[in-house]
């Protein structure tokens, strides 16, 4: 068994090689070669991941140590990988969707100069490498390498078009906000090392090991880890970087800022599931932050006009649902939603990319409309994506969202009610987006109209594949109350969460209640879709927002708040320290001492000219000379 899986290191190594080849060879390779290498390595990783997936079915866990990374005293941190069911799911998402997005990018980025084209694929490969490290790491340190690595790649790709000042500002913002979370992650890590003496998952996440932590320590550590997750997974209060991250190329938004990187926080908590299960206070915080983020972002999405911004806030909101699931102890539901969300949100982003491509770079929905006539495949796949995210029964989003809502209901009916309300908002803004973009009449310029066309196959084929997954992907998680034992995903993940589920309090919900909840949410969602469709096809939302709508359009002014409360005061403090404290106070003191020395010198008539410097220097030089002479005389 072990021998077979020893080759798992190739899964991250291949993308790294792709990065190096494309990075170094970008001046000499043709675009075709770059695209082929960039996509090919990911495909190879995907094939390996698929194979690994079947190897770990039934509860196998594989670990491999490669070399000692940091061994100091009793602390041993090996460079080691761990493959289990949880990481296998992520491996498939990362490499599978990653491959589709690489293929898509070959067409989407074809107008870039070869050098930048190569740079793009190098970054994208590097991202996949880092993300794979993150999910394959067998200890927190290797995970952290990937954790910061994806942050680096996100930074590089958001600022890919570095000529635009705003873009590199957005890149900096993303990295710095993530760093805030990373600091919390690190402190949690140091506390774990301090208390348990190890960072290895299999050593930490056992009942015996965790029993060494007091309740307070457990709560502190898990809360800190969660703060880390809020950075990477864009939750309150660290979410504002994600909408700005839309400055990056659209395939990047699909891969990094929707399907994979932003789910790192979910992965980390799912990985540490037992520890979180033993910290009920933290779970409550996670559930509350999750639902609050889901609702806040959904309300903002209602009034955004940039097609990518709507999707970005939608992503923040959907991530909120995943955290709601984690906080409710419904770990499988969270992983399930990560998976379905990866399908439909990647689809929606890539679809929006196809639209933006056709519109010649335009992202404002108010200038679109009626595109269904010109882009048949994009239109249909996008519609399917919208149906999936809205949670129409039978589509993938229905199953995963329903499972989350059921989990929330088991924790508290209030959470369920709020979650359902958020689901309705989701259905509403998604169909506002869909109708405004694809239905009605075209509102762009004549020149744009002239150029409207369906995208080439490298773009539409990934769309079709993702659309199929978005439709049928939910059937791996058919709930228990519909068919007993049909939840394949739950069965697959059972070894990972077994212990945590034994610890978590049980809230059994009657099957009849579940039927009722699912029925209620389905009816309301369908109604909302109909209302939104009717409303926006009659009269698109084109006017400038007023009143409450304006507050939503301006994202509740949270960015302005952060700017005013944190950024500006810090800058002012920095200037004050620089110009006043450092120059006048601290340095003034030193100059005072200097003057005192001169003054003292004069008083003593020890140094007549006041050139203290040269005198003391001469004195010391004299001493040094004596030493040298002494040395050579002795020899």
């Amino acid at each position: 068994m072990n021998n077979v899986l020893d080759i798992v290191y190739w899964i991250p190594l291949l993308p790294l090689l792709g990065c190096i080849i494309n990075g170094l060879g970008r001046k000499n390779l043709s675009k075709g070669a770059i695209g082929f290498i960039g996509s090919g390595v990911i495909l190879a990783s995907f094939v390996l991941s698929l194979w690994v997936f079947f190897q770990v079915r039934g509860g196998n866990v594989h670990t491999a140590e490669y070399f000692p990374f940091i061994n100091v005293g009793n602390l041993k941190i090996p460079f080691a990988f761990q493959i289990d069911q949880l990481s296998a799911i992520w491996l498939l998402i990362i490499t599978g969707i990653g491959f589709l997005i690489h293929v898509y990018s070959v067409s989407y980025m074809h107008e870039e100069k070869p050098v930048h084209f190569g740079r793009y694929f190098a970054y994208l490969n590097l991202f996949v490498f880092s993300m794979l490290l993150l999910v394959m790491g067998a200890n927190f340190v290797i995970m952290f390498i990937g954790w910061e690595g994806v942050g680096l790649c996100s930074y590089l790709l958001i600022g890919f078009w570095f000529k635009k000042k705003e873009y590199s500002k957005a890149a900096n913002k993303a990295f710095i906000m993530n760093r805030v979370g990373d600091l919390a992650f690190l402190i949690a890590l140091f506390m774990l090392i301090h208390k348990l003496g190890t960072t290895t998952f299999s050593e930490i996440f056992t009942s015996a090991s965790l029993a060494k932590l007091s309740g307070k320590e457990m709560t502190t550590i898990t809360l800190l880890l969660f703060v880390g997750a809020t950075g990477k997974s864009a939750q309150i209060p660290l979410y504002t970087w994600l909408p700005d991250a839309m400055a990056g190329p659209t395939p990047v938004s699909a891969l990094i800022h929707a399907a994979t990187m932003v789910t790192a926080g979910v992965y980390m908590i799912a990985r540490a599931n037992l520890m979180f299960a033993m910290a009920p206070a933290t779970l409550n915080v996670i559930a509350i932050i999750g639902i609050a983020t889901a609702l806040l972002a959904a309300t903002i999405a209602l009034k955004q006009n940039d097609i990518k911004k709507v999707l970005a806030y939608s992503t923040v909101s959907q991530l909120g649902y995943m955290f709601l699931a984690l906080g409710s102890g419904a770990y499988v539901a969270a992983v399930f939603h990560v998976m379905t969300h990866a399908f439909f949100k990647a689809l929606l982003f890539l679809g929006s990319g196809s639209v933006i491509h056709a519109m010649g770079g335009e992202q404002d929905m108010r200038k679109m409309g009626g595109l269904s006539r010109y882009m048949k495949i994009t239109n249909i796949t996008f519609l399917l994506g919208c149906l999936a995210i809205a949670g129409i029964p039978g589509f993938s989003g229905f199953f995963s969202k329903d499972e989350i809502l059921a989990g929330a209901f088991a924790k508290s009916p209030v959470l369920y009610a709020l979650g359902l309300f958020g689901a309705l908002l989701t259905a509403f803004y998604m169909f506002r987006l869909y109708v405004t973009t694809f239905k009605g009449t075209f509102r762009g310029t004549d020149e744009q109209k002239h150029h409207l066309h369906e995208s080439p196959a490298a773009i539409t084929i990934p769309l079709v594949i993702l659309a199929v997954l978005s439709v049928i992907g939910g059937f791996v998680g058919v709930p228990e109350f519909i068919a007993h034992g049909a939840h394949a995903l739950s069965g697959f993940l059972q070894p990972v969460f077994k212990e945590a589920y034994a610890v978590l309090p049980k809230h059994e919900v009657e099957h009849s209640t579940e039927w009722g909840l699912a029925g209620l949410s389905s009816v309301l969602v369908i109604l909302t879709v109909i209302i939104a469709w009717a409303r926006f096809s009659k009269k698109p939302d084109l006017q400038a927002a007023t009143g409450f709508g304006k507050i939503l359009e301006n994202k509740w002014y949270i960015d302005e708040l952060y700017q005013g409360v944190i950024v500006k005061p810090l800058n002012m403090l920095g200037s004050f320290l620089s110009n006043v404290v450092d120059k006048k106070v601290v340095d003034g003191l030193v100059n005072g001492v200097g003057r005192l020395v001169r003054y003292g010198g004069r008083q003593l008539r020890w140094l007549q000219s006041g050139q203290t410097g040269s005198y003391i220097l001469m004195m010391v030089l004299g001493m040094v000379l004596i030493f040298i002479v002494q040395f050579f005389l002795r020899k």
Partner: protein
Amino acid sequence: MIALLLILVPLVSGLAAFLMKKEEQVRTWSLLAAIITFIISILGVAVYTAPGCWTFRAGWMGSLNSSFSLKGDGMGIMLCLLTALSYPVIFLSTWTTAYKKVHNFFGLMLLTQAGLMGVFLAMDALLFYFFWELALIPIYFICSQWGGEKRIAVTFKFFIYTFIGSLLMLVGILYVYSRTPGHSFDITAFYQAGLSLKEQSWLFWLFFVAFAVKMPVFPFHTWQPDTYQQSPTAATMVLSALMVKMGLLGVLRWLLPVFPFASYLNGDTISLLAVTGIVYASLIAMRQDDMKRLVAYSSIAHIGLMCAAVFAEDKSALQGTMIQMFSHGINILGMWIVVEIIERKFGTVKISALGGIAQKAPVLTFFFVIIAFANIALPLTNAFIGEFLMFRGILASRVSEHGVLIMATAGLGIILGAVYTLRLGRKVFFGETNALTEKGSDIVFHERAILAIIVGAILILGIYPQPFLNALDHISQSILKNSDVLPMLMKQKH
């Protein structure tokens, strides 16, 4: 033998450089000497387990019981390697910089190198002091003779700071000497001086001020940004990459083990001061418009963390500090090389005057980005290893009562470091070009080669640090053993 050669080669070649006439000749000679020193150090590292190759002992001032005693321990060897590696890099990266009286310049540079090697290897207090001054005096001359327009005022400040520190230390050394059994300057005698708590409490500060100025630790730092800004880049590189390590090494080798009680008592105060300095310097770095001053404040922040980690007196913190002493040298050298290239290309280091360089110099930008991310300790770069171990050690410290507070305050540096470093990158390299940067061009082969060495060192140390950690294992252990106050405290209680 290796130890002696590392001092003699730069010393002799430096003295010879003073006598040379032709510019080309003196430059080549100096570079050659630096490369030979580097090769010797590599040989030394290769055979460092062989007995005796890193020790040297000769009589010196016998009447004073002071001997010419050199020994390379893990920390000393690593710093010698850093010094030996830095010099060729410094000479090459400033190859085209014009100096008046070039022979004096290179002569002084090489003398400083000899002094630095001596400081890192000396095992006799008087010898240590001698090399300490030998390193400082030439660099003082370089700054005051070849510096920028404000050099007189600036070097005067530099002078006041460092020489007051040095003199205090000399007084301290002489006092400890008088208290050693059998009056000796030998390091082991110093370790066994058995000073009373009262004596330690004032002697400690005599030494600490000298080291704190050198590092520098807040609030002893104000000489540094000015000096870095005004000195010729080659001297700034020596000051920032190598000389600051004299202060840290001083604390590790001559302060903690000689004054264990006072170190224990004052540790928390100094650590809190140091981490305050991290936040303080980082906030100031955020607002600098001069790249040199930005790097200077950034260095103060990094050194602050190392200083706090030293006083945690924890094994992982010490090993982290030592590996970080090396990494910091590499990274800041990389930073200065980039700054130097920009200054040479565009004639300014004002951040607001630059912008869009990435379009004109993609290769330079590539190297800068890696160095910048090493500067903020991204995993798989060298600085991550050091910072990780230091933070871990600060939290695990057995002697500190405020480990959590110190770590959390220092942690703010992790965030603020990203703020000012990325801001630098954004404003200088990204965005649109302007009239000045429009004419820019990319770096040439030898510049690429130098930066590739730096980046190679960053990645090697970041990906596979274990051999370096192993080399530092023994020395950190022995420093801790010599400065352990817990058994003594126990004895007092009984």
